[in-house]
């Protein structure tokens, strides 16, 4: 199945977007968690402070569905 990760900032350089400026398509097996997906891309969980499907906040244990557009938010640089 295909899911889409939307990323900005430091995550863009790591994820290597291919759909548009912000978006990377990922082929993955059903049942894998978001944590597993991003780790397979070479990201550490420390690079992802929050994740969203639409406006809904999800955890890294979330199991994506086909066609999901998931926004990954890196940590703020101090607030």
């Amino acid at each position, binding site marked *: 199945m295909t899911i889409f990760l*939307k*990323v*900005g*900032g*430091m995550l*863009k*350089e*790591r994820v290597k977007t291919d759909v548009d400026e*912000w978006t990377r398509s990922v082929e993955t097996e059903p049942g894998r968690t978001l944590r597993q997906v991003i780790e397979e891309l070479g990201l*550490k*969980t*420390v*690079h992802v*402070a*929050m994740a*969203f499907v639409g*406006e809904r*906040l999800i955890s890294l244990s979330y199991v994506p569905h086909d066609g999901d557009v998931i*926004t*990954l*938010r*890196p*940590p*703020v*640089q*101090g*607030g």
Partner: protein
Amino acid sequence: MIKGFGGNQLRIDLTTGELARTPLDERFAREWLGGRSFIAKILYDEVPRDADPLGFENRLVVTPGVMSGNFAPSGSKCCFGAVSPLSNGHGDSTVGGHFGPELKFAGLDLLVFSGIAPKPVYLLIDDAKIELRDAAKYWGLGTMEAEQMLKEDLGEDFEIVAIGPAGENLIAFSCIGHDWGRQAGRCGIGAVMGSKRLKAIAVRGTGKVPIHDLKALRDSTMAIIKRTAKHPNMAPWQKYGTAMFVGWSNQHGVYPTHNFQTTYFEDYAGIDGQPLVDRILVSNKACFGCWMNCGKYSKVSLPGKPTVFVEGPEYETGSLCGGNCGFNTIEQVAYVNWLCDHVGIDTMSGGGFAAFAMECYEKGLITREQLEGHELRWGSIDDFEHFIDMIVHRRGIGEWFARGAKYAAEQIGGGAERLVAQVKGQGMSGYDGRGAPAMLLSYMTADIGAHHNRAWTITMDEDLGKTVIKGKAKVVVYLQHIRPFFDTVSCCRLFWGEVDVTAEEHIDAIKLMTGWSDFTLEEAMRLSDRIWNLNRAHYLERNGGPGRSFDYPNARFYEEAVPSGPGKGARLTMADLDVMLDEYYEARGWGKDGNPSREILADLGLADCAANLQKRGLLGELFAPLPAVRGERYKPKAF
């Protein structure tokens, strides 16, 4: 007429009441740019080295920078500075909102207050009409009460900054409040304002800031607005603010808990961004000219307490007044946030110093008798409120804490000095450096004492290894140049840090504002380097040396391992700290004693600093070749 600037400076002698409004020199503006750079230069040149920070000879400097009030990425800030009563060195703190732009519209780029008013006053600036007015009716009011009353008296279109009773009573970590809950929080600048019996500044400006190429500036800013509106980081930021990082910080072993005893707070889910949004949020709140609109305006009702409205909580308050003090509901954290804002103390130092006192009470180093019969328990709103009241009114041991927690620790004794999380008297920000060694180095070397504003390194520490000590100092130096640049030009660095507006785009905007076609990022970074060394020289001239002796945190951070949570086992040693400092001083062109060398000062055009340090025997000896470029940008990762 200087393009991009208001064009004038104002000198206020509070002792005599004399006011002098004169044109701002363009060469000065180009050389020092504004914001914290103006402050550093003026403090160095004008404040005697033995001046009491709360005495007659200190200066209070207020300055919006070149970007404030102009149509550019979040040009909203205003910088306040003085010799800090916490560190006895350069101090500056920046507030967002609307005050800085309003000063620019009134034609002003720089206010310098000297002396002490014979009775409480506030400064009124109504375009070119400038007066010192009696502040008796406002004296004693909280920061937001004073702001409200002044707006009622003067008009809603006035922008106000005000101190609360903490500043009036010279509490060393007092802040300056603005716009219903924003602060110039750090370094105790509110106490300096109070020492001058200056309650508030009220400004209304109806003029325009001359812009070199308004059309091009507008076009480039509109392009940035359109681009960043679609940035994936924007929507989460707008919805949750920085509070959303409480969870992340816990999960990665850097969250200060129970006075930095450990780095994981089991109840963190009750105090992060989600409960804020779900339970207390009223609306978002924006600074002048900012479309990020990330401020949070909240309504809090706790049983037995008045219902209050507060801006926040942000991450720093959510950590230092959250798990660090044992508060486990967002309502408690928000109420504590409001309390600090109301009396006018920095929530970061307020939370950090209160947590230190809580641990002292837990260990029997402070007694109920010393607390006027009260306790000081983790997570008790009543205990916290009473303790803050003791400090604000300088009762009993509140008098010790009023001078800063480092001083209080010395008075308490019994090993208390090991426990207070600070460097150079400034309380640490909401990240425990044992889980992030470069972050601890950032605290150790920041010119204003421990503050993440100068350099934030958490993800870099993760990337290079949380136990890796070597190889990080150059990046800390780079961050100490690029991040304070935004405080120099007075815009919010979050556009650079979070939604990919580059430093080069900020430089381009400044060129369009000013017409300085040859202005470069390299020039801006050299200015940051110059200011850094100027502030170091100033600190040494005031405090003696060697500089290295002041660059260590309290012993907890090099003697204790983190005992629990995801960061369990993390620890640093004194040897680790020394390795980091040696690398840092080499990267800076300083001696191993932490004193700037003649060579670096000459390179930066600070020969007068070198001469002053030499007279005092405080020049450092280079122990490695002077780096041609100081600082190393960390690529391709964060920043």
